[in-house]
Protein backbone atom coordinates (compact mmCIF):
# COMPACT_ATOMS: atom_id res chain seq x y z
CA UNK A 1 0.00 0.00 0.00
CA UNK A 2 2.58 2.50 1.16
CA UNK A 3 4.99 2.24 -1.73
CA UNK A 4 2.38 2.62 -4.41
CA UNK A 5 3.40 6.18 -4.98
CA UNK A 6 7.00 5.30 -5.74
CA UNK A 7 5.81 2.81 -8.37
CA UNK A 8 4.46 5.63 -10.41
CA UNK A 9 6.68 7.39 -12.86
CA UNK A 10 7.79 10.81 -11.72
CA UNK A 11 5.51 13.51 -12.98
CA UNK A 12 6.84 15.86 -15.57
CA UNK A 13 7.23 19.49 -14.61
CA UNK A 14 4.34 20.41 -16.78
CA UNK A 15 1.91 18.31 -14.86
CA UNK A 16 3.23 19.25 -11.47
CA UNK A 17 2.69 22.91 -11.98
CA UNK A 18 -0.54 24.58 -10.97
CA UNK A 19 -1.01 26.06 -14.44
CA UNK A 20 -4.39 25.04 -15.83
CA UNK A 21 -4.25 22.86 -18.93
CA UNK A 22 -5.50 25.71 -21.09
CA UNK A 23 -2.53 27.95 -20.30
CA UNK A 24 -0.07 25.17 -21.09
CA UNK A 25 -1.10 25.19 -24.73
CA UNK A 26 0.71 27.42 -27.15
CA UNK A 27 -1.09 30.48 -28.41
CA UNK A 28 -1.59 28.89 -31.81
CA UNK A 29 -3.05 25.77 -30.21
CA UNK A 30 -5.39 27.89 -28.09
CA UNK A 31 -6.57 29.69 -31.16
CA UNK A 32 -7.18 26.48 -33.04
CA UNK A 33 -9.21 25.07 -30.17
CA UNK A 34 -11.20 28.27 -29.88
CA UNK A 35 -12.11 28.39 -33.55
CA UNK A 36 -12.82 24.68 -33.48
CA UNK A 37 -15.11 25.16 -30.50
CA UNK A 38 -16.88 28.06 -32.14
CA UNK A 39 -17.45 26.11 -35.35
CA UNK A 40 -18.61 23.12 -33.37
CA UNK A 41 -21.13 25.30 -31.57
CA UNK A 42 -22.33 26.88 -34.81
CA UNK A 43 -22.66 23.42 -36.36
CA UNK A 44 -24.69 22.24 -33.38
CA UNK A 45 -27.02 25.25 -33.62
CA UNK A 46 -27.53 24.83 -37.36
CA UNK A 47 -28.16 21.09 -37.13
CA UNK A 48 -30.60 21.47 -34.22
CA UNK A 49 -32.56 24.02 -36.22
CA UNK A 50 -32.41 22.35 -39.61
CA UNK A 51 -32.92 18.71 -38.69
CA UNK A 52 -36.61 18.98 -37.70
CA UNK A 53 -37.25 21.02 -40.84
CA UNK A 54 -35.38 18.47 -42.95
CA UNK A 55 -37.33 15.66 -41.33
CA UNK A 56 -40.63 17.42 -41.92
CA UNK A 57 -39.82 18.02 -45.58
CA UNK A 58 -38.44 14.57 -46.39
CA UNK A 59 -41.30 12.83 -44.58
CA UNK A 60 -43.66 14.64 -46.92
CA UNK A 61 -41.80 13.11 -49.90
CA UNK A 62 -41.81 9.54 -48.62
CA UNK A 63 -44.24 6.82 -49.63
CA UNK A 64 -46.23 5.20 -46.88
CA UNK A 65 -44.00 2.16 -46.36
CA UNK A 66 -41.06 4.47 -45.73
CA UNK A 67 -42.98 6.45 -43.15
CA UNK A 68 -44.62 3.74 -41.11
CA UNK A 69 -41.41 1.89 -40.42
CA UNK A 70 -39.47 1.26 -37.23
CA UNK A 71 -36.18 1.77 -39.03
CA UNK A 72 -36.54 4.98 -40.99
CA UNK A 73 -33.56 5.94 -43.12
CA UNK A 74 -32.15 9.43 -42.75
CA UNK A 75 -32.11 9.87 -46.50
CA UNK A 76 -35.28 8.68 -48.22
CA UNK A 77 -34.64 5.81 -50.64
CA UNK A 78 -37.77 6.51 -52.63
CA UNK A 79 -39.22 9.93 -53.35
CA UNK A 80 -42.81 10.61 -54.28
CA UNK A 81 -45.05 13.61 -54.82
CA UNK A 82 -48.15 11.50 -54.17
CA UNK A 83 -48.69 13.09 -50.77
CA UNK A 84 -48.87 16.56 -52.28
CA UNK A 85 -51.17 15.29 -55.02
CA UNK A 86 -53.48 13.87 -52.35
CA UNK A 87 -53.37 17.08 -50.35
CA UNK A 88 -54.04 19.39 -53.24
CA UNK A 89 -56.57 17.37 -55.21
CA UNK A 90 -58.18 14.80 -52.94
CA UNK A 91 -58.49 16.45 -49.56
CA UNK A 92 -60.00 19.51 -47.94
CA UNK A 93 -56.63 21.21 -47.78
CA UNK A 94 -57.43 23.71 -50.58
CA UNK A 95 -60.56 24.69 -48.69
CA UNK A 96 -58.53 25.28 -45.51
CA UNK A 97 -56.01 27.27 -47.51
CA UNK A 98 -58.75 29.43 -48.98
CA UNK A 99 -60.21 30.15 -45.54
CA UNK A 100 -56.76 30.97 -44.19
CA UNK A 101 -56.09 33.33 -47.09
CA UNK A 102 -59.42 35.16 -46.81
CA UNK A 103 -59.03 35.73 -43.08
CA UNK A 104 -55.38 36.70 -43.48
CA UNK A 105 -56.13 39.30 -46.15
CA UNK A 106 -58.83 40.82 -43.96
CA UNK A 107 -56.53 40.99 -40.95
CA UNK A 108 -53.68 42.51 -42.97
CA UNK A 109 -55.89 45.16 -44.60
CA UNK A 110 -57.67 46.17 -41.38
CA UNK A 111 -54.53 46.17 -39.26
CA UNK A 112 -52.27 47.95 -41.72
CA UNK A 113 -54.81 50.66 -42.57
CA UNK A 114 -55.86 51.43 -39.03
CA UNK A 115 -52.36 51.19 -37.57
CA UNK A 116 -50.95 53.55 -40.22
CA UNK A 117 -53.68 56.17 -39.84
CA UNK A 118 -53.69 55.83 -36.06
CA UNK A 119 -49.92 56.04 -35.81
CA UNK A 120 -49.97 59.18 -37.91
CA UNK A 121 -52.74 60.78 -35.89
CA UNK A 122 -51.18 59.95 -32.54
CA UNK A 123 -47.90 61.53 -33.61
CA UNK A 124 -49.12 64.64 -35.42
CA UNK A 125 -52.12 65.87 -33.45
CA UNK A 126 -51.84 66.97 -29.90
CA UNK A 127 -54.14 64.36 -28.48
CA UNK A 128 -54.73 64.26 -24.71
CA UNK A 129 -54.11 61.13 -22.62
CA UNK A 130 -51.29 59.92 -24.87
CA UNK A 131 -49.58 58.29 -21.92
CA UNK A 132 -52.72 56.29 -21.19
CA UNK A 133 -53.00 55.29 -24.85
CA UNK A 134 -49.39 54.15 -24.90
CA UNK A 135 -49.88 52.01 -21.82
CA UNK A 136 -53.15 50.65 -23.16
CA UNK A 137 -51.57 49.67 -26.47
CA UNK A 138 -48.67 47.90 -24.76
CA UNK A 139 -51.08 46.15 -22.43
CA UNK A 140 -53.08 45.02 -25.45
CA UNK A 141 -49.90 43.63 -26.96
CA UNK A 142 -49.55 41.31 -23.95
CA UNK A 143 -52.98 39.71 -24.41
CA UNK A 144 -52.73 35.96 -25.08
CA UNK A 145 -55.19 34.40 -27.53
CA UNK A 146 -56.88 32.04 -25.09
CA UNK A 147 -57.78 34.95 -22.83
CA UNK A 148 -59.73 36.62 -25.63
CA UNK A 149 -61.06 33.49 -27.31
CA UNK A 150 -63.62 32.41 -24.69
CA UNK A 151 -65.11 35.88 -24.01
CA UNK A 152 -65.21 36.44 -27.77
CA UNK A 153 -67.02 33.13 -28.24
CA UNK A 154 -69.77 34.31 -25.91
CA UNK A 155 -69.94 37.82 -27.36
CA UNK A 156 -69.57 36.80 -31.02
CA UNK A 157 -72.38 34.21 -30.60
CA UNK A 158 -74.71 36.91 -29.38
CA UNK A 159 -73.71 39.19 -32.24
CA UNK A 160 -74.18 36.35 -34.73
CA UNK A 161 -70.63 36.50 -36.10
CA UNK A 162 -69.46 33.14 -34.79
CA UNK A 163 -68.30 30.80 -37.59
CA UNK A 164 -67.89 33.77 -39.91
CA UNK A 165 -64.90 35.24 -41.68
CA UNK A 166 -65.71 38.67 -40.26
CA UNK A 167 -65.75 37.39 -36.69
CA UNK A 168 -62.41 35.65 -37.06
CA UNK A 169 -60.83 38.63 -38.83
CA UNK A 170 -61.86 40.97 -36.03
CA UNK A 171 -60.63 38.52 -33.42
CA UNK A 172 -57.20 38.12 -35.00
CA UNK A 173 -56.96 41.86 -35.49
CA UNK A 174 -57.07 42.09 -31.69
CA UNK A 175 -53.77 40.22 -31.59
CA UNK A 176 -52.06 42.05 -34.44
CA UNK A 177 -53.25 45.63 -34.02
CA UNK A 178 -51.70 46.78 -30.71
CA UNK A 179 -48.11 46.06 -31.70
CA UNK A 180 -48.69 47.35 -35.25
CA UNK A 181 -50.09 50.62 -33.93
CA UNK A 182 -47.12 50.88 -31.59
CA UNK A 183 -44.67 50.37 -34.46
CA UNK A 184 -46.37 52.99 -36.64
CA UNK A 185 -46.60 55.45 -33.77
CA UNK A 186 -42.88 55.15 -33.21
CA UNK A 187 -42.21 55.19 -36.94
CA UNK A 188 -43.98 58.48 -37.64
CA UNK A 189 -42.01 60.09 -34.84
CA UNK A 190 -38.88 59.50 -36.91
CA UNK A 191 -40.46 61.30 -39.90
CA UNK A 192 -39.71 65.01 -39.42
CA UNK A 193 -42.87 67.15 -39.53
CA UNK A 194 -40.86 69.84 -41.34
CA UNK A 195 -41.35 68.01 -44.65
CA UNK A 196 -45.09 68.29 -44.34
CA UNK A 197 -44.85 71.85 -43.07
CA UNK A 198 -42.92 72.95 -46.12
CA UNK A 199 -45.44 71.22 -48.37
CA UNK A 200 -48.15 73.14 -46.55
CA UNK A 201 -46.28 76.39 -47.07
CA UNK A 202 -46.18 75.49 -50.77
CA UNK A 203 -49.96 75.39 -50.67
CA UNK A 204 -50.81 71.76 -50.02
CA UNK A 205 -53.75 71.10 -47.73
CA UNK A 206 -53.22 69.29 -44.43
CA UNK A 207 -54.86 66.12 -45.72
CA UNK A 208 -52.78 66.18 -48.88
CA UNK A 209 -49.54 66.42 -46.89
CA UNK A 210 -50.56 63.26 -45.06
CA UNK A 211 -51.44 61.33 -48.22
CA UNK A 212 -48.67 62.59 -50.49
CA UNK A 213 -45.81 63.35 -48.09
CA UNK A 214 -46.06 61.36 -44.85
CA UNK A 215 -47.52 58.05 -46.09
CA UNK A 216 -44.95 57.45 -48.87
CA UNK A 217 -42.11 58.02 -46.40
CA UNK A 218 -43.74 55.57 -44.00
CA UNK A 219 -43.65 52.76 -46.57
CA UNK A 220 -41.04 50.63 -44.78
CA UNK A 221 -43.07 50.83 -41.59
CA UNK A 222 -46.27 49.97 -43.45
CA UNK A 223 -44.65 46.95 -45.11
CA UNK A 224 -43.28 45.61 -41.85
CA UNK A 225 -46.65 46.01 -40.14
CA UNK A 226 -48.32 44.21 -43.05
CA UNK A 227 -45.87 41.30 -42.73
CA UNK A 228 -46.29 41.19 -38.98
CA UNK A 229 -50.08 41.02 -39.22
CA UNK A 230 -49.79 38.39 -41.96
CA UNK A 231 -47.62 36.30 -39.66
CA UNK A 232 -49.99 36.68 -36.71
CA UNK A 233 -52.99 35.60 -38.75
CA UNK A 234 -51.16 32.77 -40.52
CA UNK A 235 -49.88 31.40 -37.22
CA UNK A 236 -53.12 31.58 -35.28
CA UNK A 237 -54.70 28.37 -34.00
CA UNK A 238 -56.55 29.19 -30.78
CA UNK A 239 -58.92 31.81 -32.20
CA UNK A 240 -59.97 29.88 -35.33
CA UNK A 241 -60.41 26.72 -33.30
CA UNK A 242 -62.82 28.40 -30.90
CA UNK A 243 -64.47 31.01 -33.12
CA UNK A 244 -64.73 28.99 -36.36
CA UNK A 245 -65.44 25.45 -35.16
CA UNK A 246 -67.41 24.41 -38.23
CA UNK A 247 -65.04 25.32 -41.01
CA UNK A 248 -61.29 25.22 -40.75
CA UNK A 249 -58.16 27.15 -41.50
CA UNK A 250 -54.93 25.21 -42.16
CA UNK A 251 -53.75 25.13 -38.57
CA UNK A 252 -57.05 23.76 -37.26
CA UNK A 253 -57.91 21.65 -40.31
CA UNK A 254 -54.90 19.33 -40.10
CA UNK A 255 -56.57 17.72 -37.09
CA UNK A 256 -58.75 15.91 -39.65
CA UNK A 257 -55.73 14.05 -41.05
CA UNK A 258 -55.01 12.57 -37.63
CA UNK A 259 -58.49 11.18 -37.21
CA UNK A 260 -58.28 8.59 -39.96
CA UNK A 261 -57.58 4.94 -39.20
CA UNK A 262 -53.90 5.33 -39.86
CA UNK A 263 -52.46 8.76 -39.30
CA UNK A 264 -51.06 9.98 -42.62
CA UNK A 265 -47.91 11.55 -41.29
CA UNK A 266 -46.46 12.14 -44.74
CA UNK A 267 -49.53 14.17 -45.69
CA UNK A 268 -49.52 16.07 -42.41
CA UNK A 269 -45.87 16.96 -42.90
CA UNK A 270 -46.65 17.98 -46.48
CA UNK A 271 -49.39 20.30 -45.25
CA UNK A 272 -47.04 21.68 -42.62
CA UNK A 273 -44.41 22.35 -45.25
CA UNK A 274 -46.88 24.05 -47.61
CA UNK A 275 -48.21 26.18 -44.77
CA UNK A 276 -44.73 27.24 -43.65
CA UNK A 277 -43.56 28.11 -47.14
CA UNK A 278 -45.34 31.49 -47.55
CA UNK A 279 -43.94 32.68 -44.24
CA UNK A 280 -40.41 31.69 -45.27
CA UNK A 281 -40.73 33.41 -48.65
CA UNK A 282 -42.38 36.57 -47.35
CA UNK A 283 -39.96 37.22 -44.59
CA UNK A 284 -36.90 36.63 -46.70
CA UNK A 285 -38.23 38.66 -49.60
CA UNK A 286 -38.93 41.63 -47.37
CA UNK A 287 -36.02 41.29 -44.99
CA UNK A 288 -34.69 44.65 -46.14
CA UNK A 289 -37.91 46.33 -45.09
CA UNK A 290 -38.12 44.42 -41.86
CA UNK A 291 -34.68 45.55 -40.87
CA UNK A 292 -35.16 49.18 -41.81
CA UNK A 293 -38.66 49.74 -40.54
CA UNK A 294 -38.99 47.28 -37.77
CA UNK A 295 -36.40 46.70 -35.13
CA UNK A 296 -37.68 43.84 -33.01
CA UNK A 297 -35.37 45.13 -30.31
CA UNK A 298 -37.94 47.86 -29.85
CA UNK A 299 -40.44 45.52 -28.34
CA UNK A 300 -41.26 46.96 -24.96
Amino acid at each position, binding site marked *: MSNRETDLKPLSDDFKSDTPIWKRLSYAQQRKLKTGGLYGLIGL*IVVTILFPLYWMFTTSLRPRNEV*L*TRTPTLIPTELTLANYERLLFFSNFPQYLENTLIVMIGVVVITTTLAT*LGGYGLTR*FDIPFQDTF*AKGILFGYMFPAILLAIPMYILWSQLGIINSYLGLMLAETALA*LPFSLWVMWKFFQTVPPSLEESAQVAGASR*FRTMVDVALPIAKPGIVSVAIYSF*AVSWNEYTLPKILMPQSFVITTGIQAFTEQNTVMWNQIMGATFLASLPAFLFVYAFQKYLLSGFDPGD*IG
Partner: protein
Amino acid sequence: MPQLKRVQDTLYERLSNRSLMIVLTVVPVLLLLTFVLILPIIWAVRASLFEISLFQQDWTWVGVQNYAQTLTDSAFQASLWRSMIFAVGSVAIQLVVGTGIALVIAREFPFNKGVRAVALLPYLIPTALLGYVGVWMFNTNWGIINSILIQLGIIEYGLEWFGNPDTAMLLLMITTAWKYAIFVTILVLARLQSIPDGYYDAARIAGASKWERFRDITLPNLKGVIFIVVLLRGVWMFNTYDIISVMTNGGPGSATTTAAIYAYEVAFENYQLGRSAAVSVVLFVILVVAALIYFRVLEPQSEVRTE
Protein backbone atom coordinates in the same frame (compact mmCIF):
# COMPACT_ATOMS: atom_id res chain seq x y z
CA MET B 1 -59.34 65.06 -65.82
CA PRO B 2 -58.54 68.56 -64.48
CA GLN B 3 -62.07 68.59 -63.17
CA LEU B 4 -61.47 65.37 -61.22
CA LYS B 5 -58.34 66.92 -59.82
CA ARG B 6 -60.32 69.92 -58.65
CA VAL B 7 -62.87 67.68 -56.97
CA GLN B 8 -60.03 65.84 -55.23
CA ASP B 9 -58.49 69.13 -54.12
CA THR B 10 -61.77 70.40 -52.66
CA LEU B 11 -62.30 67.07 -50.94
CA TYR B 12 -58.79 67.14 -49.45
CA GLU B 13 -59.38 70.75 -48.38
CA ARG B 14 -62.58 69.79 -46.62
CA LEU B 15 -60.89 66.83 -44.89
CA SER B 16 -58.06 69.00 -43.65
CA ASN B 17 -59.97 70.27 -40.64
CA ARG B 18 -58.05 69.26 -37.52
CA SER B 19 -60.87 67.57 -35.61
CA LEU B 20 -62.02 65.84 -38.76
CA MET B 21 -58.54 64.45 -39.30
CA ILE B 22 -58.41 63.18 -35.74
CA VAL B 23 -61.75 61.48 -36.34
CA LEU B 24 -60.37 59.93 -39.52
CA THR B 25 -57.04 58.75 -38.14
CA VAL B 26 -57.14 58.06 -34.41
CA VAL B 27 -60.79 57.33 -33.74
CA PRO B 28 -61.18 54.24 -36.00
CA VAL B 29 -58.29 52.39 -34.43
CA LEU B 30 -59.38 53.27 -30.90
CA LEU B 31 -62.93 52.16 -31.64
CA LEU B 32 -61.76 48.84 -33.04
CA LEU B 33 -59.38 48.24 -30.14
CA THR B 34 -62.24 48.96 -27.75
CA PHE B 35 -64.43 46.49 -29.58
CA VAL B 36 -61.93 43.63 -29.80
CA LEU B 37 -59.98 44.05 -26.56
CA ILE B 38 -62.02 45.96 -23.96
CA LEU B 39 -65.53 44.77 -24.81
CA PRO B 40 -64.68 41.03 -24.63
CA ILE B 41 -63.17 41.55 -21.16
CA ILE B 42 -66.26 43.45 -19.98
CA TRP B 43 -68.33 40.65 -21.47
CA ALA B 44 -66.29 38.03 -19.65
CA VAL B 45 -66.81 39.82 -16.34
CA ARG B 46 -70.53 40.02 -17.01
CA ALA B 47 -70.84 36.42 -18.25
CA SER B 48 -68.88 35.13 -15.27
CA LEU B 49 -71.76 36.10 -13.00
CA PHE B 50 -74.24 33.90 -14.88
CA GLU B 51 -74.80 30.27 -15.55
CA ILE B 52 -74.99 30.00 -19.31
CA SER B 53 -76.33 26.99 -21.16
CA LEU B 54 -74.55 25.68 -24.22
CA PHE B 55 -76.74 27.42 -26.74
CA GLN B 56 -76.86 30.53 -24.63
CA GLN B 57 -80.62 30.94 -24.70
CA ASP B 58 -80.83 31.63 -21.03
CA TRP B 59 -78.46 33.31 -18.66
CA THR B 60 -79.22 32.51 -15.03
CA TRP B 61 -77.80 34.92 -12.46
CA VAL B 62 -75.58 33.08 -9.99
CA GLY B 63 -73.49 35.91 -8.56
CA VAL B 64 -69.97 34.96 -7.57
CA GLN B 65 -70.70 31.24 -7.54
CA ASN B 66 -68.59 30.62 -10.65
CA TYR B 67 -65.59 32.25 -8.98
CA ALA B 68 -66.12 30.31 -5.76
CA GLN B 69 -66.29 27.06 -7.74
CA THR B 70 -63.27 27.89 -9.86
CA LEU B 71 -60.97 29.11 -7.14
CA THR B 72 -61.74 26.15 -4.86
CA ASP B 73 -61.46 23.61 -7.67
CA SER B 74 -58.27 21.69 -7.03
CA ALA B 75 -58.04 20.91 -10.75
CA PHE B 76 -57.88 24.65 -11.46
CA GLN B 77 -55.20 25.24 -8.83
CA ALA B 78 -53.20 22.36 -10.25
CA SER B 79 -53.58 23.75 -13.77
CA LEU B 80 -52.25 27.15 -12.66
CA TRP B 81 -49.27 25.39 -11.12
CA ARG B 82 -48.64 23.45 -14.34
CA SER B 83 -48.85 26.66 -16.37
CA MET B 84 -46.22 28.08 -14.05
CA ILE B 85 -43.94 25.06 -14.41
CA PHE B 86 -44.33 25.04 -18.18
CA ALA B 87 -43.69 28.80 -18.42
CA VAL B 88 -40.64 28.75 -16.16
CA GLY B 89 -39.13 25.70 -17.88
CA SER B 90 -39.77 26.90 -21.40
CA VAL B 91 -38.64 30.48 -20.79
CA ALA B 92 -35.50 29.27 -19.01
CA ILE B 93 -34.51 27.16 -22.03
CA GLN B 94 -35.39 30.00 -24.42
CA LEU B 95 -33.32 32.44 -22.40
CA VAL B 96 -30.21 30.29 -22.13
CA VAL B 97 -30.28 28.98 -25.70
CA GLY B 98 -31.41 32.28 -27.21
CA THR B 99 -28.72 34.29 -25.44
CA GLY B 100 -26.13 31.65 -26.33
CA ILE B 101 -27.04 31.83 -30.01
CA ALA B 102 -26.89 35.63 -29.89
CA LEU B 103 -23.41 35.58 -28.34
CA VAL B 104 -22.23 33.17 -31.05
CA ILE B 105 -23.85 35.04 -33.95
CA ALA B 106 -22.45 38.37 -32.71
CA ARG B 107 -18.96 37.10 -33.55
CA GLU B 108 -17.50 37.29 -36.98
CA PHE B 109 -17.14 34.12 -38.96
CA PRO B 110 -17.74 33.01 -42.55
CA PHE B 111 -21.39 32.35 -43.49
CA ASN B 112 -22.54 34.52 -40.58
CA LYS B 113 -25.43 35.86 -42.67
CA GLY B 114 -26.43 32.35 -43.64
CA VAL B 115 -26.48 31.23 -40.02
CA ARG B 116 -28.60 34.25 -39.10
CA ALA B 117 -31.10 33.38 -41.82
CA VAL B 118 -31.25 29.76 -40.65
CA ALA B 119 -31.76 30.85 -37.05
CA LEU B 120 -34.86 32.77 -38.09
CA LEU B 121 -36.57 29.75 -39.69
CA PRO B 122 -38.15 28.17 -36.58
CA TYR B 123 -39.94 31.42 -35.75
CA LEU B 124 -41.78 31.26 -39.08
CA ILE B 125 -43.48 27.89 -38.69
CA PRO B 126 -47.04 28.20 -37.41
CA THR B 127 -46.92 27.03 -33.78
CA ALA B 128 -49.71 24.48 -34.06
CA LEU B 129 -48.05 22.87 -37.09
CA LEU B 130 -44.76 22.74 -35.24
CA GLY B 131 -46.69 20.73 -32.67
CA TYR B 132 -47.42 18.08 -35.31
CA VAL B 133 -43.75 17.95 -36.32
CA GLY B 134 -42.89 17.35 -32.65
CA VAL B 135 -45.53 14.66 -32.24
CA TRP B 136 -44.28 12.95 -35.38
CA MET B 137 -40.58 13.06 -34.53
CA PHE B 138 -41.22 11.69 -31.02
CA ASN B 139 -43.73 9.08 -32.18
CA THR B 140 -43.30 5.88 -30.19
CA ASN B 141 -43.18 3.40 -33.08
CA TRP B 142 -42.12 5.35 -36.12
CA GLY B 143 -40.47 8.44 -34.71
CA ILE B 144 -36.97 9.31 -35.81
CA ILE B 145 -35.84 10.22 -32.30
CA ASN B 146 -36.62 6.77 -30.91
CA SER B 147 -35.04 5.18 -33.97
CA ILE B 148 -31.81 7.15 -33.48
CA LEU B 149 -31.72 6.38 -29.75
CA ILE B 150 -32.22 2.67 -30.44
CA GLN B 151 -29.48 2.63 -33.06
CA LEU B 152 -27.12 4.37 -30.67
CA GLY B 153 -27.93 1.67 -28.13
CA ILE B 154 -29.22 4.15 -25.55
CA ILE B 155 -32.66 2.53 -25.36
CA GLU B 156 -33.93 -0.86 -26.35
CA TYR B 157 -37.56 -0.12 -27.17
CA GLY B 158 -39.18 3.06 -28.40
CA LEU B 159 -40.06 5.36 -25.52
CA GLU B 160 -43.62 6.55 -25.08
CA TRP B 161 -42.66 10.20 -24.82
CA PHE B 162 -46.21 11.42 -24.56
CA GLY B 163 -47.33 8.63 -22.26
CA ASN B 164 -45.06 9.74 -19.45
CA PRO B 165 -46.08 12.89 -17.52
CA ASP B 166 -42.50 14.14 -17.14
CA THR B 167 -41.29 13.61 -20.70
CA ALA B 168 -44.56 14.99 -22.08
CA MET B 169 -44.07 18.24 -20.15
CA LEU B 170 -40.38 18.34 -21.05
CA LEU B 171 -41.12 17.88 -24.75
CA LEU B 172 -43.61 20.75 -24.66
CA MET B 173 -40.93 22.97 -23.14
CA ILE B 174 -38.29 21.89 -25.65
CA THR B 175 -40.53 22.24 -28.69
CA THR B 176 -41.74 25.71 -27.74
CA ALA B 177 -38.19 26.76 -26.87
CA TRP B 178 -37.03 25.51 -30.27
CA LYS B 179 -39.38 28.00 -31.86
CA TYR B 180 -39.11 30.97 -29.51
CA ALA B 181 -35.41 31.01 -28.63
CA ILE B 182 -34.86 33.20 -31.67
CA PHE B 183 -37.17 35.83 -30.15
CA VAL B 184 -34.64 36.11 -27.32
CA THR B 185 -31.76 36.05 -29.80
CA ILE B 186 -33.12 38.99 -31.78
CA LEU B 187 -33.64 41.12 -28.69
CA VAL B 188 -30.29 40.23 -27.14
CA LEU B 189 -28.42 40.73 -30.42
CA ALA B 190 -29.86 44.23 -30.84
CA ARG B 191 -28.78 45.08 -27.30
CA LEU B 192 -25.32 43.55 -27.76
CA GLN B 193 -24.69 45.63 -30.85
CA SER B 194 -25.59 48.80 -28.97
CA ILE B 195 -22.84 48.31 -26.39
CA PRO B 196 -20.01 50.67 -27.41
CA ASP B 197 -16.77 48.83 -28.25
CA GLY B 198 -14.98 51.39 -26.13
CA TYR B 199 -16.26 49.75 -22.95
CA TYR B 200 -14.53 46.53 -23.86
CA ASP B 201 -11.34 48.29 -24.94
CA ALA B 202 -11.20 50.22 -21.68
CA ALA B 203 -11.73 47.05 -19.67
CA ARG B 204 -9.05 45.24 -21.64
CA ILE B 205 -6.55 48.01 -20.98
CA ALA B 206 -7.47 47.88 -17.29
CA GLY B 207 -6.52 44.19 -17.43
CA ALA B 208 -9.97 42.64 -17.14
CA SER B 209 -10.13 38.99 -18.21
CA LYS B 210 -12.60 37.73 -20.78
CA TRP B 211 -14.94 36.41 -18.13
CA GLU B 212 -14.73 39.67 -16.16
CA ARG B 213 -15.56 41.62 -19.28
CA PHE B 214 -18.60 39.41 -19.88
CA ARG B 215 -19.72 39.62 -16.24
CA ASP B 216 -19.16 43.34 -15.78
CA ILE B 217 -20.06 44.74 -19.20
CA THR B 218 -22.15 42.33 -21.24
CA LEU B 219 -24.42 40.96 -18.53
CA PRO B 220 -25.37 44.30 -16.90
CA ASN B 221 -26.23 45.65 -20.35
CA LEU B 222 -28.44 42.66 -21.06
CA LYS B 223 -30.34 42.96 -17.77
CA GLY B 224 -33.16 45.04 -19.22
CA VAL B 225 -33.65 42.82 -22.21
CA ILE B 226 -33.58 39.70 -20.06
CA PHE B 227 -36.27 41.23 -17.88
CA ILE B 228 -38.47 41.93 -20.93
CA VAL B 229 -37.99 38.40 -22.19
CA VAL B 230 -38.81 36.79 -18.87
CA LEU B 231 -41.90 38.93 -18.43
CA LEU B 232 -43.38 38.94 -21.95
CA ARG B 233 -42.44 35.40 -22.90
CA GLY B 234 -43.42 34.30 -19.40
CA VAL B 235 -46.91 35.76 -19.80
CA TRP B 236 -47.33 34.19 -23.23
CA MET B 237 -45.98 30.79 -22.26
CA PHE B 238 -48.12 30.80 -19.10
CA ASN B 239 -51.20 31.20 -21.32
CA THR B 240 -50.12 28.90 -24.16
CA TYR B 241 -52.96 26.95 -25.69
CA ASP B 242 -52.11 26.12 -29.30
CA ILE B 243 -49.12 23.80 -29.15
CA ILE B 244 -50.22 22.06 -25.95
CA SER B 245 -53.61 21.38 -27.52
CA VAL B 246 -51.92 19.79 -30.53
CA MET B 247 -49.15 17.85 -28.81
CA THR B 248 -50.71 16.49 -25.63
CA ASN B 249 -54.12 18.15 -25.27
CA GLY B 250 -53.47 18.17 -21.52
CA GLY B 251 -52.45 14.52 -21.25
CA PRO B 252 -51.34 12.01 -20.25
CA GLY B 253 -54.14 12.12 -17.71
CA SER B 254 -54.01 15.76 -16.75
CA ALA B 255 -50.23 16.02 -16.53
CA THR B 256 -50.03 18.90 -19.00
CA THR B 257 -53.45 20.44 -18.41
CA THR B 258 -52.35 24.03 -18.00
CA ALA B 259 -54.75 26.87 -17.17
CA ALA B 260 -55.41 27.53 -20.87
CA ILE B 261 -56.32 23.88 -21.53
CA TYR B 262 -58.44 23.88 -18.37
CA ALA B 263 -60.33 26.98 -19.54
CA TYR B 264 -61.04 25.32 -22.89
CA GLU B 265 -62.26 22.12 -21.26
CA VAL B 266 -64.60 23.98 -18.92
CA ALA B 267 -66.11 25.85 -21.85
CA PHE B 268 -66.28 23.28 -24.62
CA GLU B 269 -66.15 19.90 -22.94
CA ASN B 270 -68.19 20.63 -19.80
CA TYR B 271 -70.23 23.34 -21.56
CA GLN B 272 -70.00 25.69 -18.59
CA LEU B 273 -69.58 28.97 -20.43
CA GLY B 274 -70.23 31.16 -17.39
CA ARG B 275 -67.60 29.38 -15.37
CA SER B 276 -65.10 29.47 -18.24
CA ALA B 277 -65.68 33.24 -18.35
CA ALA B 278 -64.76 33.32 -14.66
CA VAL B 279 -61.56 31.40 -15.46
CA SER B 280 -60.79 33.98 -18.18
CA VAL B 281 -61.27 36.82 -15.69
CA VAL B 282 -58.88 35.16 -13.22
CA LEU B 283 -56.29 34.80 -16.01
CA PHE B 284 -56.91 38.44 -16.91
CA VAL B 285 -56.19 39.53 -13.34
CA ILE B 286 -52.89 37.64 -13.46
CA LEU B 287 -52.09 39.42 -16.75
CA VAL B 288 -52.85 42.81 -15.17
CA VAL B 289 -50.39 42.09 -12.36
CA ALA B 290 -47.70 41.21 -14.91
CA ALA B 291 -48.46 44.37 -16.90
CA LEU B 292 -48.22 46.56 -13.77
CA ILE B 293 -44.79 45.14 -13.02
CA TYR B 294 -43.80 45.74 -16.66
CA PHE B 295 -44.90 49.39 -16.64
CA ARG B 296 -43.46 50.06 -13.19
CA VAL B 297 -40.03 48.60 -13.86
CA LEU B 298 -39.36 49.48 -17.51
CA GLU B 299 -41.65 52.42 -18.31
CA PRO B 300 -41.90 51.23 -21.93
CA GLN B 301 -44.56 53.88 -22.61
CA SER B 302 -41.86 56.55 -22.40
CA GLU B 303 -40.52 55.34 -25.76
CA VAL B 304 -43.11 57.44 -27.53
CA ARG B 305 -43.22 61.17 -26.92
CA THR B 306 -46.37 61.65 -24.95
CA GLU B 307 -45.98 64.92 -23.07
